[in-house]
């Protein structure tokens, strides 16, 4: 089933971390397996923010050896970043198995990302100037408390509560998906993509990597692939309705935009609230009410509807 949520404060930074936590907690009944956040803050100069994990949450119970292995893996990552001329400004240990780096770098980002992901167990969750992508097992308050999301500020955000259907209950299969290796692009999805393997093989032939068997990852790769070829976000979303089979509603965020697309059957829900300075969307209105508790006018977008908002 899965629950989606998105929020944009036009032209200003706000407490999107706590707002998204409240929205996703009210959607817990749509998917209690994992929760994910994509928070877009105000970029600080040319600094990159990278979130990386080196193990799955359930690996922590695999024995005492895992703690030393995790330390070793992080050490290799630090070494490889230094080797490539990365200047690390901050390194926060988010959980025992994940870190958040703030750094400057002038080289080939894709090469660096591949080199880091070559470390055993390493998966880069996100890289960008504005994006911080956080996902883990548990409901919204659990994940939010674990990663201190409640204090995070930003202009816009995406969120997802996942009910695992066609792939595992693990962080790798949790949403949002970052569009490797493109900065600041994230996707959340509700639905099933029926031509997933055809499309995935097509993307793999063009050099894209997939870290999971979750069909939603395809959307992130698909969007990033076309945007890298100079196609505008809105056009990519329209194109996806023709090319991707199945039932889906999905949200895409970039550093300064947030968009949505709905399949030709309109089988997956989405409710929208729009005002001049605030846009809120979710799979159910009850999530919108978590941040706007008073009476508001909302509506459902129709089949094949695509919308893009400027943050």
């Amino acid at each position: 089933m899965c629950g989606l949520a998105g929020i944009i404060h036009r032209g200003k930074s706000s407490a999107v971390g706590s707002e998204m936590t409240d929205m996703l907690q009210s959607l817990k009944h749509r998917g209690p397996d994992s929760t994910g956040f994509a928070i877009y803050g105000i970029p600080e100069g040319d600094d990159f923010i990278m979130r990386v994990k080196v193990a799955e949450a359930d690996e922590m119970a695999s024995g005492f050896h895992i703690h030393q292995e995790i330390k070793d893996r992080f050490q290799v990552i630090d070494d490889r970043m230094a080797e490539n001329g990365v200047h690390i400004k901050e390194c926060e240990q988010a959980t025992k198995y994940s870190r958040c780096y703030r750094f400057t770098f002038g080289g080939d980002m894709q090469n660096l990302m591949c080199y880091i992901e070559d470390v055993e167990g390493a998966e880069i969750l996100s890289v960008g100037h504005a994006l911080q992508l956080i996902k883990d097992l548990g409901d919204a308050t659990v994940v939010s408390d674990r990663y201190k999301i409640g204090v995070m500020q930003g202009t816009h955000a995406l969120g997802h509560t996942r009910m695992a259907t066609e792939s595992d209950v693990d962080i790798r299969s949790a949403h949002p998906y970052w569009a490797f290796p493109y900065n600041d692009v994230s996707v959340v999805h509700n639905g099933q993509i029926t031509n997933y393997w055809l499309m995935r093989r097509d993307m793999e032939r063009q050099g894209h990597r997939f870290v999971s068997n979750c069909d939603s990852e395809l959307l992130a790769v698909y969007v990033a692939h076309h945007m890298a070829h100079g196609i505008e976000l809105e056009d990519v979303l329209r194109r996806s309705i023709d090319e991707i089979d199945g039932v889906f509603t999905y949200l895409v965020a970039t550093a300064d935009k947030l968009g949505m697309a709905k399949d030709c059957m309109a089988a997956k829900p989405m409710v929208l609230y729009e005002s001049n300075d605030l846009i809120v969307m979710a799979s159910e209105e009850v999530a919108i009410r978590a941040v706007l508790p008073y009476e508001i006018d909302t509506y459902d977008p129709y089949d094949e509807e695509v919308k893009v908002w400027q943050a």
Partner: protein
Amino acid sequence: MASLEESKAQQMGMHTEQLLGRTQQMFFDPEQEDNFLYPWAKEVDFNKRGEVDASDLSSTEINNQIRTLLKSGHGSIVIKNPGAKHSIAVGILNRLNLTIEGSLGYFGVGLIDGPNVRISGRVGWSCAENMMSGSVVIEKNAGSTFGAAIRGGDLVCKGSVGSRTGIDMKGGTIIVGGDTGAFSGFMMQRGRMVVCGDAGKSLGDSMYDGTIYIGGTIRDLGVDAIPAELTELDRAWLTRKLSQYDLMPAQDVDHFQKIVAGKQLWNYDNLEPIEKKLIL
């Protein structure tokens, strides 16, 4: 209440459950059908008014409070601050004037038989699903599968509704003041649907029977849905129904398009199961 005759199967002890629902009854005049009451229906006084503040209540608690007020004879109930919660005011099989001040989430006022409901906000997916009688009037928009499988009563949304409006409807009337989405009237079997605005793609797809009236444009018709001539009876009925809910367009109803089933897809005799039994 219509008389309940013990069936031969019951006499033979083949089953002991006594089925009392509206669909088990045989009505021979409309007034009898209008006045149908369940044996357990509460006597209520419409001048006795009760209020439920739903702010801090769960859906179950709200529904329990409605039942408690019905038991104590309240015929008019107001629900305040529903906060778009799901499954509110479901399964009411009683006469009641219910006012909801705010918006409902999914499955609002589903499985009802009898109450007159007015909702000042918006409703989510599957509003009034399986409604049997009474009326529901929504002042703002509604989500998808609006009035799915309704069998009777008037279901009115003054705003626009989502996709698959009136899917599998078996009777009653759905009226939409604005637009409706794709696959509206999908597998419709009986009843009437009126949309004052535009209709999305595949309107009336695979409909068995029933009538759809569209005041605006139709993106395209579904399989086996065909246009039909708007008769004087249709005009009179549309005028009466739309006037009743303050949705009468300024330019009269002559511009409405009428859509019916082509009846090429099915082998369907248009009878209720109980009517079939009588024939057989």
